[in-house]
C-alpha cells in the first residue's frame, strides 16, 4: 500500500488547491491550514492513502464543518471534535472506524478531517464526496449513491454530541443538522453515516487531495519561475480559460441564508471586446457569454487572480479586480444521469440540461510517486481487526 505523509509545504499546496476547487465557495481554508500544521508541529503525522487500497470491509467516516463562518473564526475548533464524533459513532455502531475522508474538498472543509487523522493516527483517504464545493450536505456522491441518512452525528467545541439515529431522507438530515448546529452556537463539526471501504472505492471522487495538492503546486511553481499561473491551472486540469478581464459589475444578495447574484467580467488583452456573466449561488454556477452557457454546474468554474492564480471567493469579488475565469471538467462521478439529478443545472433551478466541458484530467495520486514510508501499523492489518 502506498502512503503519502503530509508535510507543511504539502499543507500550503493543498490549502491553495482547495480554494481553486472551492469554485468561489466552501469557506476560507486559512484556519484549517493552521490546524493541520499545528498537528505536524506536535510530531503527529497525517497519512494519506488511496481509496483503492482500502479493505472492502473497512469503515470510513466522512467529516466536515457546518455553520456560520462568522462564528467559526471567533469560537474556533477545540481540536478533538472529529475524535469525539468518531468515538460516538463507534460506540453507536459497535464498529471501529478505520479511516476518515472529507465530505467536501472545496474550501476549508477539504482540510477538516486532517486534525482527526493526525491525532488518532488513522489514514485520510485521498478523495472526497464532491470533488468541489456545494451548498448542501446531501449534495455528495455518497448520498447520491445511497449512503444511509443515519446514523449521523454532530459535536461542538464544548463537548456536546448529538446523534441522529433516524432521518427519513438526506434533506431531513440536513434540516436536523442545521437545527443542532444552531443549538451548538452556530458552529459545529459533523459526521455522516460510516461507509464501507468498498463503497468509498466506488463512490468517493478519487484522488482529490492529490488534485488540490497538484493545483497548489502548479500555481506555486508558476509564480516561482514567473510563468502564467492561470495557464498552469488550465493545463493541469484539462480545463478551459473562458475569460481574462476585469470585474465590471457585481450584484450580490442574501436569500434564505445563501449568497445569490452574479458578476460581469469585461475582457482584456486577447479577450478584449468580449464579456462574460457568471451566476452565483454560494459557488460560481454558470458562465454565460452572448446568451450561451459556456460552462455550468457540476463542471467547476473557478475565478482566480490573473497575475497570481490566487482563487477569489464570491464574497471577495469587487469592481476592477483582474481575474481569469477557468472552467474545469467535473469528475466522472458527478456527470452521471443519477448525479445530475442532485447537482446538475436543474437542481439549481435552471431550465436546461447539462452540457459537459469534456473529460476531467487524469489525476496522478501523490502517494503513487511520493510513496513515503509509513512507520505505524500497516493499515490493512488494522482494517482486518474490523469489528471492535
Amino acid at each position, binding site marked *: 500500500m502506498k502512503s503519502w505523509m503530509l508535510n507543511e509545504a504539502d499543507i500550503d499546496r493543498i490549502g491553495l488547491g482547495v480554494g481553486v476547487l472551492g469554485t468561489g465557495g466552501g469557506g476560507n481554508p486559512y484556519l484549517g491550514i493552521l490546524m493541520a500544521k*499545528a498537528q505536524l508541529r506536535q510530531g503527529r503525522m497525517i497519512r494519506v492513502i488511496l481509496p483503492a487500497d482500502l479493505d472492502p470491509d473497512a469503515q470510513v467516516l466522512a467529516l466536515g464543518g457546518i455553520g456560520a463562518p462568522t*462564528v467559526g473564526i471567533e469560537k474556533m475548533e477545540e481540536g478533538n471534535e472529529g475524535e469525539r464524533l468518531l468515538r460516538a459513532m463507534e460506540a453507536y455502531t459497535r464498529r471501529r472506524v478505520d479511516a476518515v475522508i472529507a465530505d467536501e474538498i472545496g474550501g476549508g472543509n477539504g482540510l477538516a478531517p486532517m486534525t482527526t487523522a493526525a491525532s488518532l493516527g488513522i489514514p485520510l483517504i485521498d478523495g472526497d464526496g464532491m470533488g468541489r464545493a456545494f451548498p448542501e450536505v446531501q449534495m455528495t456522491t455518497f448520498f447520491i449513491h445511497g449512503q444511509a441518512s443515519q446514523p449521523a452525528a454532530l459535536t461542538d467545541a464544548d463537548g456536546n454530541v448529538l446523534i441522529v439515529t433516524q432521518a427519513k431522507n438526506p434533506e431531513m438530515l440536513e434540516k436536523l443538522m442545521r437545527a443542532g448546529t444552531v443549538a451548538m452556537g452556530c458552529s459545529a463539526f459533523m459526521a455522516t453515516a460510516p461507509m464501507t471501504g468498498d463503497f468509498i472505492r466506488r463512490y468517493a471522487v478519487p484522488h482529490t487531495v492529490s488534485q488540490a495538492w497538484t493545483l497548489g503546486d502548479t500555481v506555486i511553481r508558476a509564480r516561482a519561475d514567473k510563468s502564467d499561473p492561470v495557464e498552469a491551472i488550465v493545463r493541469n486540469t484539462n480545463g478551459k480559460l473562458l475569460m481574462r478581464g*476585469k470585474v465590471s459589475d457585481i450584484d450580490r444578495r442574501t436569500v434564505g441564508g445563501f449568497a445569490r447574484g452574479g458578476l460581469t467580467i469585461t475582457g482584456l488583452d486577447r479577450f478584449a471586446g468580449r464579456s462574460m456573466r457568471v451566476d452565483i449561488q454560494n459557488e460560481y454556477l454558470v458562465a454565460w457569454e452572448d446568451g450561451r452557457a459556456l460552462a455550468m454546474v457540476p463542471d467547476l468554474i473557478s475565478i482566480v487572480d490573473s497575475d497570481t492564480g490566487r482563487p477569489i471567493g464570491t464574497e471577495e469579488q469587487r469592481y476592477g479586480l483582474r481575474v481569469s475565469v477557468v472552467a474545469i471538467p467535473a469528475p466522472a462521478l458527478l456527470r452521471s444521469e443519477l448525479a445530475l439529478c442532485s447537482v446538475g443545472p436543474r437542481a439549481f433551478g435552471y431550465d436546461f440540461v447539462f452540457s459537459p466541458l469534456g473529460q476531467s484530467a487524469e489525476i496522478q495520486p501523490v502517494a503513487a510517486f511520493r510513496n513515503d514510508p509509513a512507520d505505524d501499523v500497516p493499515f490493512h492489518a488494522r482494517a482486518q481487526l474490523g469489528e471492535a
Partner: protein
Amino acid sequence: MRDLLRIGVDVGGTNTDAALLRNVDVLATIKTATTKDVIRGVSAAIRSVLTAAETSADEIGSVMIGTTHFLNAVVEGKHLERTGVLRLCGAATRAVPPMIDWPQDLRDLVDGGAHLVGGGVNYDGSPIAPLDGRAIRDACRQWRADGISAVAICSVFALVDARMEIEAAAIVAEELPGASISMSHRIGRTGLLQRESATILNASLHRLGQETIAAFRTAFAEIGLSCPLYLTQNDGTLMTAEFAERFPVFTIASGPTNSMRGAAFLTGLSDAAVIDVGGTTTDIGMLVGGFPRGRSEGAAIAGIPTNFRVPDVFSFGLGGGSLVRSEGGLRIGPDSVGFRLSEKALCFGGDSLTSTDIAVAAGLIALGDPDRVKHLDKALIRDALGQMRLRVETVLDQMKPGPEPIPAVLVGGGSMLIEGPLEGVSQLLRPEHFGSANAIGAAIAQVSGEVDNIVSLEGMTREAAVEEIVKEAIKRAVEAGAAEATIIVAEIEETSLSYLPGNAIRIAAKVVGDLAL
C-alpha cells in the same frame, strides 16, 4: 477666537515632511531626509518649519505626528516587550493556539507564555465557561517568575460581551501590579486569532509607546513647544499622546492615510482617487466622504495577520527615483535611487537614468540641469511617460468603485511624472502644496471613535442597538481627545450574519470630531 497654529509632521521611509498651518491656511512646508533617530529628525523638521514660517514655538497650539516608528519596531524586531497571553475560551479554540501564524523570529522575541483558561462567550452572549480566576492567578505567578510585565487578554466573542476581559484584567492588575494590560475588545474586530495577535502587538509595544512619547516631550521642551502632542492613527484621525501610550498599535498602519486626508483638505474634494507619487513608490487610494476607503480584509503587520481596518491602498514601484532601463524593452522601476536622487540622477550630474530625468527632459518639471538630459531620445521620453501614465491608469481602474469617471488628486514629490489627462478620470487636480500633502493631512486631522460589535436584537430594537453603539463610539472619541460638541457620525455599517438565528447583527460605527483644544 484666537488663531490656531498647528504643525503637522509626517515621517516617511525617505522623507520627513512638516507643515505649519494657521487655521486652514498653509504658512510653510518643508521636506527633510528621514533620520535614523526619528525623534531627532522630527525635532529638526519642526525647527525648520518654524523658521520657514517665521514663527516662534510658543505660538504653536498643537503638534500632530504621523510616524512609522512603531511599525519599524515590529519590522526590525526591536524594542518589543515579551508578552504573556491570556485567552478566555474554555475548551474551545485550542486547535489554534496563540501566535501560531507569527513569523518564528518575532514569536521568539514576543512570546512570554500563553494560558488558555475558562471563560469566553458564544455569539448570543451565553457563557462558554465561567471565568477561571484561579487559572488566571496561576498564569500571573508564572509570568511574575519569568519577569513578564505585559499581558494581552483576549476572550472569545469579546465584541459581544467584554465583561470577562475586564474582570480578567482586574485580576491580572492585582497579581502583577504595574503590568501593562491590553484587552482585545478595545483593539480589534471579529476574528479571534487576528484580534488576539493585534492585542499582543499592542501589549508588546506598550513600553516603547511610553518611552517614545516621553522622548517627544523632552525634545519638544528643548524647542520650546509646550502644546499638546497628537499622533495620527491607522484611519487618519488623531489620538492624544496619553492615548497613544496605551494603544501604540493604532499608529502602525497610518502611513498612507495622511496624504489622502491632505489631498481632501487641499482640494475640498471628499470623494476622489488620490495618487501619491513618492520617491520609490506610488500609492493609490480612494477618498469616500473625506476619509480613505478601508480594506475589507485585515492587514498583515510585519508578516503577522491582524484584522485592523486599514486604508485600501494599492502600492507599486513607481516614483521620482525609479530607474529607467531601455535595453531589451523599456522598464521603469521597481528599484529606485530613493533619497539619493540628487546625486544619482542624470539631471543632477549623476550616472543613473531616472524617471525624474524623463520628466525634466519632457519639460514637466524644472529640476537640476536640463542640458544634461537633452540627449535623451524623444521616442524614449514619450514611451516612458506613456508607460508611467498607463500603470497609474491601470491601478486606478482597479481601485475605482465603478466604471464612471471620477476626480483624482495628484500629490507627493514625484507627482510631476504623471502627465494628464488620465483615462477614467473626470478631473485631475494637483493642488498647491501637493508635495507636503501628508504633513498637511496630519495637521488638519480630526479625532475618531470606532466600535464594531455583534449584538442580538432579541428584546431590543435595531435603533436602540445602533444608538448604544454610537454612544460607545462617542465615548471613545472623547477619550482620544475629541470635543464632544463637534462629533458627528461618519459611518454606520450593519451586517446581518448569515446562518445566525436570533437576529444577531454586526454593527460598526465610527464617529469623528474636532480636537478639543
